[in-house]
């Protein structure tokens, strides 16, 4: 069996369930802080601990954030939505039921455009998160083989929005693109900080395959535990392959939950024993219906930001940058605004230059320092200044890198760094000419080979001589002037 057989015979059908933690200050039903990484069991109260006698009261911000997504993705917002109790026992769930939405969710039937293809979204509903268990005594903190578990309820009751797509996704690559686009949209809307590594965005995939040319859906498996967008793609690729191979071998697919193991690169069945789940949903008697008012919906609409799809298109045309560059910018919270401010302050150079520096050096600095764009010491107009220095020929690109590194570190203006370090590049033709002459003299055989050689040899030898000259000038030469003088001499 080869991969080709599998992929030509079988078509995958994928639906995605995305849970995001909402960017609220407090939990869904109580005033405890919604924050990541606090000391265990410090953000708890009678409500989120499920203490006897406590009652939930819905966070209005959570409703507003759900409606923001609803507006952005053209959901139908039903006139009324209600909460249900989903009943099952699990130690990280303080009440042993999850307050969630069932047949009357806050958002119904939306859609999102992913690389020019529309993916329908069945629903988006509000629900509370569970606490977190630490498994002790097993290998690598895993639940299996653990001796006991320790539960922290800080996360219990954190507001989640569960976004369920239709099975409209037909490849692992498209699944990755869907998650990427949804993530960018949620970020732009301020609905969530969508950090997969911190668990504020979690993706489960329902994957099935069917014989090419048939329309009936095959038996699906649910894949969990994918901790990055890359692992979403890898896990789904693996699972498609696995199912297709099973079917090619005449086996059948078991409907089950499988966990993605990132290290081993495979999915594994999580069934421990046959436990029947019957969630016994019923309307939550301690909460009342949510009826989004016209006023609230108008407020949400009035504060709608530009969505990533439109914004990317605009940046590509306004700044003459690539779609890829636009995606890189939008992927980092605040980076586009930063670039926008820098572009506004530009005197020489192009927006594209700004974008190159921002998505290169500035982003690398952010990744190294672990900070956010707000922590960057370099003001946007200082980046514009740096671009100007390069465009005017005051410094070359190599020098600019050095200057930018210093400015990012210290916050000093690029012009000041250039002055302090005496970095202005050499453009004087006499000085540059003299240096070139010395190089040509010292490398006379290279000149000979250049003159005798074909285009490839010419290119190679010219590059060698250019490098020698640059080095002789300690990297301070104006590259284009230097190249012009060299070419004149080589004839």
């Amino acid at each position, binding site marked *: 069996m080869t991969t080709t057989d599998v992929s030509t015979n079988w078509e995958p059908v994928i639906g995605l369930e995305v849970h995001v933690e909402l960017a609220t200050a407090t939990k869904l039903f109580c005033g405890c802080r919604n924050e990541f990484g606090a000391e265990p069991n410090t953000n708890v109260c*009678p409500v989120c*601990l*499920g*203490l*006897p*006698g*406590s*009652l*939930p*009261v*819905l966070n209005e911000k959570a409703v507003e954030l759900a409606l923001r997504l609803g507006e952005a993705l053209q959901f139908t917002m039903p006139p009324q939505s209600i909460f249900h*109790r989903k*009943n099952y*026992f699990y*130690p990280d769930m*303080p*009440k*042993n*039921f999850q307050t969630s939405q069932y047949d009357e969710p806050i958002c119904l039937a939306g859609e999102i455009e992913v690389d020019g293809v529309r993916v329908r979204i069945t629903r988006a509903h509000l629900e509370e998160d569970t606490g977190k268990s630490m498994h002790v005594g097993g290998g690598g903190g895993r639940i299996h083989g653990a001796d006991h*578990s320790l*539960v922290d309820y800080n996360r219990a009751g954190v507001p989640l929005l569960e976004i369920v797509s239709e099975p409209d996704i037909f490849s692992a690559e498209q699944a990755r693109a869907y998650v990427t686009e949804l993530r960018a949209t949620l970020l732009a809307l301020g609905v969530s900080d969508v950090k997969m590594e911190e668990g504020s965005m979690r993706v489960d995939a329902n994957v099935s395959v069917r014989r090419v040319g048939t329309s009936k859906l095959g038996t699906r498996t649910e894949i969990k535990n994918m901790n990055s967008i890359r692992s979403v793609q890898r896990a789904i690729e693996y699972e498609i392959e696995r199912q297709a191979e099973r079917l090619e071998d005449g086996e059948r697919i078991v409907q089950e939950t499988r966990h993605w193991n990132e290290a081993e690169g495979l999915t594994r069945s999580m069934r421990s024993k046959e436990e029947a789940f*019957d969630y*016994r*949903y*019923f309307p939550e*008697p*301690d*909460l*009342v219906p949510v009826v989004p008012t016209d006023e609230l919906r108008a407020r949400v609409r009035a504060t709608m930001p530009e969505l990533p799809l439109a914004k990317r298109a605009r940046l590509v045309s306004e700044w003459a940058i690539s779609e890829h560059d636009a995606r890189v910018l939008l992927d980092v919270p605040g980076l586009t605004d930063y670039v926008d401010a820098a572009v506004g302050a530009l005197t020489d150079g192009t927006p594209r230059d700004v974008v190159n520096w921002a998505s290169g050096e500035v982003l690398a600095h952010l990744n190294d320092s672990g900070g956010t764009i707000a922590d960057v010491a370099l003001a946007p107009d200082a980046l514009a200044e740096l671009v100007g220095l390069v465009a005017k020929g005051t410094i070359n690109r190599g020098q600019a890198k050095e200057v930018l590194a210093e400015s990012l570190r210290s916050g000093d203006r690029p012009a000041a760094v250039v002055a302090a370090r005496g970095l202005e590049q050499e453009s004087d033709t006499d000085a540059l000419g003299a240096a070139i002459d010395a190089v040509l003299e010292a490398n006379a055989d290279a000149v000979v080979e250049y003159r005798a050689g074909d285009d490839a040899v010419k290119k190679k030898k010219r590059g060698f001589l250019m490098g020698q000259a640059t080095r002789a000038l300690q990297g301070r030469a104006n590259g284009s002037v230097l190249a012009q003088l060299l070419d004149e001499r080589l004839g």
Partner: protein
Amino acid sequence: MTTSPSASAIAAAVRGGDTRAIDVLEEHLARIAGREAEIHAFNTVLEDDARATADAIDAAVAEGRDPGPLAGVPVALKDNLCTRGVATTCSSRILEGWKPPYDATVVERLRAAGAVIVGKTNLDEFAMGSSTENSAFGPTRNPHDPTRVPGGSSGGSAASVAAGFASLALGSDTGGSIRQPAALCGVVGAKPTYGTVSRYGLIAFASSLDQIGPFATSVDDAALLLETIWGHDPCDSTSIAQPTPSLRATLDGGVDGLRVGIVEELTDVDGIAPEVREAVEAAALALEKEGATVDRVSLPSSEYGLSAYYLIAPAEASSNLARYDGVRYGLRVDAPDVATMNASTRDAGFGAEVKRRIMLGTYALSAGYYDAYYAQAQRVRTLIVRDFARAYERFDVLLSPTSPTVAFEFGAKTSDPLAMYLSDVCTIPSNLSGHPAISVPWGTGASGLPIGAQVLAPALAEPLMFRVARAIEVAAS
């Protein structure tokens, strides 16, 4: 029987500096010392805390400050109301020793009003029962006849007021758990309109039915206590923003011109003891003499009330009681894995009636049965609400027995759950509709045991309901 002086008289005397709160308290503690061993009204008596509160109230009065409308009044709390740092058990092994880290909203209001909390009263475990025999800590006895039950589930609260252990008490009423024990113990007990009194800190039995309400020896005192605990609470989403009615101001307004309907299905049916029916007739006659018009009224769907209730309440309870799992508080029975630990803890911690209702509710909500049982019961609830609406087009208030019988003997109904459930047949419809209802003593039966008449009123018609109750009380005395 020795009962406490009226709460309003105590508060007036304490506020005026004529009586000391500590002296009032000591009288009550003396009565507790005299008879509590026999009655067992309390799970916990808070002598020390109560003395400290009483002293603080006396100090406040001495300094010229007003401790509030319940200054120095000894109040008993059903042991399903959370009290900060004080064991709150629901009369269940599963919560034995648990000390809540917070006060219920009603408890906060009582403290702010200057009440002196004397203890936590016994109940049927998790308020499931009609006799207080389902308490894990032993039954409460009826102060009128210790061989008989006080009713339930708030039997301890009813008995504490009847025995003069407390001047006032709070209970909770899910299917009659305030009114039925009030009737059986010969005191006044009221269930206000759903949403008027915060449920925050009331340990849930059935969330859409539970309401907190007062016990007192008089209608006036019951009104005083209800006025104190009434009011919107941002911590309870089902709490309604309704200004506190001045129940006491209109109490003696009389019933002249009021239209009173005797509910046929709750009065003229088998199972209602003749002496109880006669008492209700007599109360109606008394109202008629005061200028009310009385007629029979039919609530045809109310005959389904009991069945609907015994699907809805257990369903909600099965979910509300899922949190008792041995993980965060209360009892734990050790086991090698968490699911077995949960199941063993719950089997050991819950009594038979609680398990029965959890099982019934779990079944009624389970796949394949939800529509036939739970959803159908919620539709019947709508029918009952409609019946009431129709009745209130013709009548201002309704009248019925509170309990089908006077207090029964221990063990009389414990072997047959349905027989016990029938104790609530007259009180359940108001819980399903959310409307207020009050039980007022009307004489005694052949055995000398108290009988209660129940006055039912439309939503938020408490002022009217208390006025009628007061007229019955006056006529009865």
